[in-house]
Structures are given as C-alpha cells and as structure tokens.
C-alpha cells in the first residue's frame, strides 16, 4: 500500500503541470484570439503605415492579435493562389487582383461574410455592394464573399508644363472623348516641331501585361457605347451591334494611336508600373492609369509636381462623343476569409472593426488618397474636399460620387479570364503592329471571348 507524502504530492503536481500543455487547450485558447491577415504592399509607404496603425488600434481595442503580413503585390497574389490550392490558408486576405474574389467564390473557397457587410450596408455604395457578390458554382447561388474596403478608377494624368510648352493651356482640352484624346496628338506634333525627339502625346498601355491594358480598353469601350457587353445577369452580348461597334472603335483608336506614333513604342512591352515610370520621366504628355499612384508617389519628393505640374482629370474626365457622362469602372478591393481558416470569428470581428466608416476612412486618408473610399459619406470629409489639393476632389467625384459600374467580372467570372488572357490587348496590338483591320481584330477577339465564356456556364 502506498501513502501520500508531501514529496509525492509535489511530484504529482509537477508532473501534471508538465503535462498540461499537451492536455489543456492552451494553444487553442491563444489561437482563438489571433488571426493571420495577408495584405499587398502599398505603392507608397504611407499605405503600409496606415494599415499597421489600423491593425494596432484594433489590437488595442479588442485584446486580440492580428498576425499581419504585408507582401509585395505580385508575390501576394501568388501566395494567395498557392495557399488556396494547397489548403493552408490565412484567416483573412485582400483581393489581389480583385477578381480573385469571384474566381474562388466560383469554386466555393470563401466563407460567406454577409453578416460583416450587413453591419455597414447602408454606408456602402451600390457599386461596392455589387462587387462584394459572386456566383458559387458548387452551391449554385450568388453570395456575399467580400467585404469592400477601398476602390480605384482610371483617371487621366497630364503634365501641365508639356501642354503649355506646346502652346496650349489645360483649359483648352476639349470635353468630349475623341476630341479630348486627339488634343494630345496636337500637343505631341507641336512639341516635335520644337525639337522634342522623345515625347509622346498618349500613354496608352497597348501591351499584354498586367491589368492596365484591360482597364484602358474598357474605358474606351464604355465611352463608345459598349456598356452592355455583359449585363448584370451575367449574359454576354457580343451579338449586340452597339457592343461590336464600340469594340471596333476602341480597338481602332487605341491601336491606331500606337501605329501612328502617338504612343511610346515601348508601351507594347509595358507592365503595370512602366507607364507610371515613363510618365514620371515625361516620356508622354498624358497617361490613362488606375488610382492616384502616379501623383502620390511623388507628393513628398516633388511637391511642385504634385501641386502644380500634374493634372488629373477627374471632374474633367471626358464625356462620350455625344456629351453624356461616361461611367467609371470601379475596381473594389475586398477582404475575404478563405474556407479552412482557423479563426473565422476573430477575422470577422476584425473586419467589422476595420470597415467602420471612421476606421476605414482614416486608413484610406493616411494612405494619401491613392485609393478611394467605398462609402459616399466619406467623400465629404475635409481630406477629400480639400480645395488646396488639385487631385482628390476630382478623383472622388469620378470614382464614388459620379456614375460608376463595377468591373464586369462581377457579373460573370469569365471576364476575369478575358482580362488575364489579354484578349483585348491582342486586338489592339494586331491593329497597332500587325496592320490588321480593327473589324478583323475584334472578330478574332470575340471568338476567343466566346470560347472563354463557354467554360463558365452557370448551372
């Protein structure tokens, strides 16, 4: 028979204490208050600083921990795709590019976040709410899989000194679409006469890299009346004569400008950052490029450029050739929770905190306004309405307060593949470089688009 002694009690207690980490849910408890979040690195450092501040504020307020990973843009996308393919996922990720929401919703890879969106539903713009939805081909329903965070549209960026050197004023720029862009051809012609050997009028991304060429083409397609290429029900309308005519005009104008020497020849190889760099190097008078990254990137180093020399046409964005406003296509950055995430509750709680107007508004403003808010009420803030800032009011008017539509992959995922396969780019390049007629280039593009859409037939 054995007896309890002081030593045996102590021994037993020590053994129990040593075994506790293996038996008790210590790790689980820690995990329950921690969520991992993957964000893409900002174009300017202020964006990352703003994000870290928002996360730190949340951690302080909640006592929870967010394991934040800020990853460069391209590797972030690769990491998200690899994670979802392998099943080892973070608790939260940003859409990058945005269509990844629709892409993996199709495969039933995201957690429904309608309860998070519901908390601010009255605040979000209609376009942002549409962009948060996607079709799930497994459940055969449309659901809310994204929490809208911020947005971007594609403004025009112009060098005032180059326009003035050519003998014009910014006020001389016409307001209707074709005349607006033709104006910069005249600017180039005048600059060439003055001996400027390497200045081009138009910074069109006639390339098959990145997302810029698709955004450019779509802006022209809408301006020429091709809004119904895909309708809200997800149906493709390539047989609509208006859509075809708009596509031919867009291809002809963009490819023709390159062919006629008004676009830097290297544009055919540009990636998404190259046009920004070329614009900063004053290789072209104007650039059509998404977000205000072109301006905010130089705000600190070259305040003269930002405040005096660079002009962004937001309010002055051209109308269509008949004088009607052209809706801006809005790309909405979303936050998603992958299925298989370990800490969905914390991730949702963080999102509910993050999308409060005050928090998300401050996050966007601290990022210098490269991105737009997705809540119209935020556009009224002194930051966005600052009369001293030459860019922000126009930008927020164009992308939030004016007429907008979500990008077309929101209505049908196939448009994301059309974008990523650069189908419209190939049409532009065929005209620009190969001498193909716009009609033939569009026929070829439409054939490819039909092939792609056939893969995404809804049940």
């Amino acid at each position, binding site marked *: 028979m054995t007896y309890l002694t002081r030593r045996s009690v102590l021994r037993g207690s020590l053994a129990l204490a040593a075994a506790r980490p293996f038996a008790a849910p210590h790790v689980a408890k820690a995990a329950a208050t921690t969520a991992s979040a993957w964000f893409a690195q900002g174009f300017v450092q202020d964006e990352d600083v703003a994000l870290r501040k928002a996360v730190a504020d949340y951690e302080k307020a909640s006592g929870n921990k967010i394991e934040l990973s800020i990853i460069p843009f391209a590797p972030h996308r690769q990491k998200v*795709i690899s994670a979802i393919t392998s099943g080892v996922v973070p608790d939260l990720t940003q859409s990058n590019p945005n269509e990844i929401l629709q*892409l993996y919703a199709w495969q039933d890879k995201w957690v429904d976040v309608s309860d998070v969106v519901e908390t601010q539903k009255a605040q979000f713009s209609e376009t942002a709410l549409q962009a948060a939805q996607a079709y799930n081909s497994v459940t055969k329903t449309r659901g809310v899989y994204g929490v809208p965070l911020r947005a971007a549209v594609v403004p025009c960026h112009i060098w005032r000194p180059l326009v003035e050197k050519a003998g014009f004023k910014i006020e001389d720029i016409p307001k209707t679409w074709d005349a607006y862009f033709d104006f910069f051809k005249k600017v180039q012609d005048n600059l060439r006469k003055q001996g400027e050997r390497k200045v081009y009028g138009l910074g069109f991304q006639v*390339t098959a890299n990145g997302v810029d060429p698709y955004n450019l083409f779509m802006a022209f397609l809408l301006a020429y009346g091709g809004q119904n290429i895909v309708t809200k029900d997800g149906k493709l309308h390539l047989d609509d004569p208006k859509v075809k005519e708009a596509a031919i005009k867009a291809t002809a104008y963009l490819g023709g400008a390159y062919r006629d020497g008004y676009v830097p020849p*290297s544009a055919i*190889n540009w990636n998404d950052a190259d046009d920004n760099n070329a614009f900063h190097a004053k290789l072209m008078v104007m650039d059509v490029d998404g977000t205000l990254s072109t301006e905010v990137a130089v705000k600190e180093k070259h305040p003269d450029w930002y405040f005096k020399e660079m002009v962004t046409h937001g309010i002055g964005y051209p109308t269509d050739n008949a004088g009607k406003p052209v809706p801006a296509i809005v790309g909405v950055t979303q936050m998603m929770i992958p299925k298989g995430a370990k800490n969905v509750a914390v991730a949702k709680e963080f999102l509910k905190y993050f999308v409060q107007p005050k928090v998300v508004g401050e996050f966007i403003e601290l990022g210098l306004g490269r991105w737009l808010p997705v809540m119209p009420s935020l556009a009224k803030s002194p930051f966005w309405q600052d009369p001293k800032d030459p860019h922000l009011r126009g930008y927020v008017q164009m992308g939030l307060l004016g007429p907008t539509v979500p990008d077309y992959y929101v209505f049908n995922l196939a448009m994301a593949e059309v974008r*990523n396969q*650069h189908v419209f780019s190939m049409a532009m*390049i065929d005209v620009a470089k190969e001498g193909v007629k716009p009609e033939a280039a569009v026929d070829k593009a439409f054939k490819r688009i039909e092939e792609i859409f056939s893969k995404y037939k809804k049940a």
Partner: protein
Amino acid sequence: MNGASVLDIDRPAIRRRTLARSLRGTLKGGEYTWAVAFVVPYIAVFLAFVVYPVVYGLWMGSEASLYRELFADPIYQSTVVNTVLYLALGVNVKMFLALLLSGFFMRPGRWMKALLLIFVLPWAVPQISTFISIHWMLNGEWGFLNNVLYGLFHIEGPYWLNDRWSALGAVIVAHIWKWTPFWTLILLAGRMAIPLEIRDTAKVDGATGLSGFVHITFPLLANLYLICTLLSTIFLLGDFNAVTFVSGGGPANQGHVLATIGIRNAFDLAQPRLGVAAVMSALPMVIPLVIVLMRKLRTAEVQL
C-alpha cells in the same frame, strides 16, 4: 492434383529470410538497428522533398482536359517554338563558346588569371539585377544602347524588345552572356585534367594547334562536353529569369517559353493546374535527356 512440392510450402518464409539477409548484409545485431536509424531520416527527407513534390506535380497535371485547354491557348504554339529555339541556340552557342574560351584561358601568364577573374563576373553577380539592367539597356526610347547609337552616329536604334525575334534573340544573348563563364570554368577544369604527358607526346608527333585540338583535346573532352550540354539543356528548360526580366515574355506574349507560360497560367490566370500542365508538356523532351545523361555519367567513370 496439387502440384506443389513439399519444398514450396515454406517458400514465402524462405523469401522473407533471404530478403532480410540481403538487407542486413554483413551487419550483425545492434549494427543493423543503428544502420536503420541512420537511414530513416534520409528516406524521410527523400519522401518529403523529392517523392511528394514530384507525385503532387504529376497529380496536378494529370487531367487530359488541361492539355486540351493548353493546346487551345493561342500563345502555346509560339511558346513551344521559342522554347526549342532557346534551347538549341542558347545551349549550343554557349557551350561552343565555352569550349573555345576554355582553350584561351589555358594560356600561361598572370594577366590571364586576372582576365579570367573579370570574365567570370557576369556569372558571379546576381542574375535578376543584371537581366533587369539588360532590359533597361535595350529600351527603345531611353535605353543605353540606342542613346549610344544616336549620340555617336545619329542613328535611331530599333526597338529591340518590340519584335518577337529580336526580343527572343536578346534573351538568348543575355543567357549566353550570363552562363558562358560558368561552363568555361567547367571545361577549363576538364582541359587541365588532361595529363601533360599526353599533350607533350602529341606535340612530339606534330599534333599542335588545331590538329592537337581535333585529335587529342576534343576526343578527351567529348564526354564531359556532352554531359555539360545535357545538363545545361535541362537547366535551361526550367529557366524563368532570363525571359521574365529581359523581355517579359513579350511582345504581346509572343516571347514566352514553357517555364514562363507555366507561371503565367498558374498565377496570372490563377489556374495552377494549367500552369503545371504547361511545364509537364516538356516531359517528353526532358525524360530522354535525363536517360541519356544517366547513361553518359556511368560511362564517364573511366573517361575524362
């Protein structure tokens, strides 16, 4: 009638004992346990880092529909042509130059050692930054090359990266520039391993210069040259950096090779399986190369 003899009854047990004996070899008792303990980690690493990735890759690229989709991609055919040209020119020009240069660097003298040091620099410096430099150098508007042409001769240089063939040519030249020093060093080591007696005897017999190279040096180096060529081909087939950073697979996606189209499909199109299928489509080329390489490595034991 049961045809089994009495000897067959215990045959499985005999087989097991024979297998165990052959595995044990001459090891006895605790030695065998220790041997197993030492081998198990290697097997585990081999399974985790060799077998698993290969099998996972094969599984990812196993659906026939992926290949139908791949072949329907308008840029796949040009990608295959580019890959073949990249391999044929990139490997053979580089190896031939390396063979010639290894002979040059056999010359005696201190200055030759200094020159060799400078010569290996392209190989020694990080490849991504050098390829990006080449990309910028070839920029049509403000690149170094066209600025020099204009500055010296008032010639507007071509847009090197705007044409499929000149862009591919730029990639091939960049690859050759980058990797020729490495293979030159390998072949130089091979040349230095040729015994002096053989060379001296050949000289006595009048085999000097080209004659010495054709009749003495090259036959002795031939096996090494072939192995290097095969290895280089396998390395180049998976090369992603030169194409991505020099031409970006352009213009208009006409300059891709299989390695870069695989990455494009996997991450730009967000279709990892299609990306794996693109790379897998090179297997009919890779497997024969590996088989020939293995055979040559076996014969290389007794040859230089």
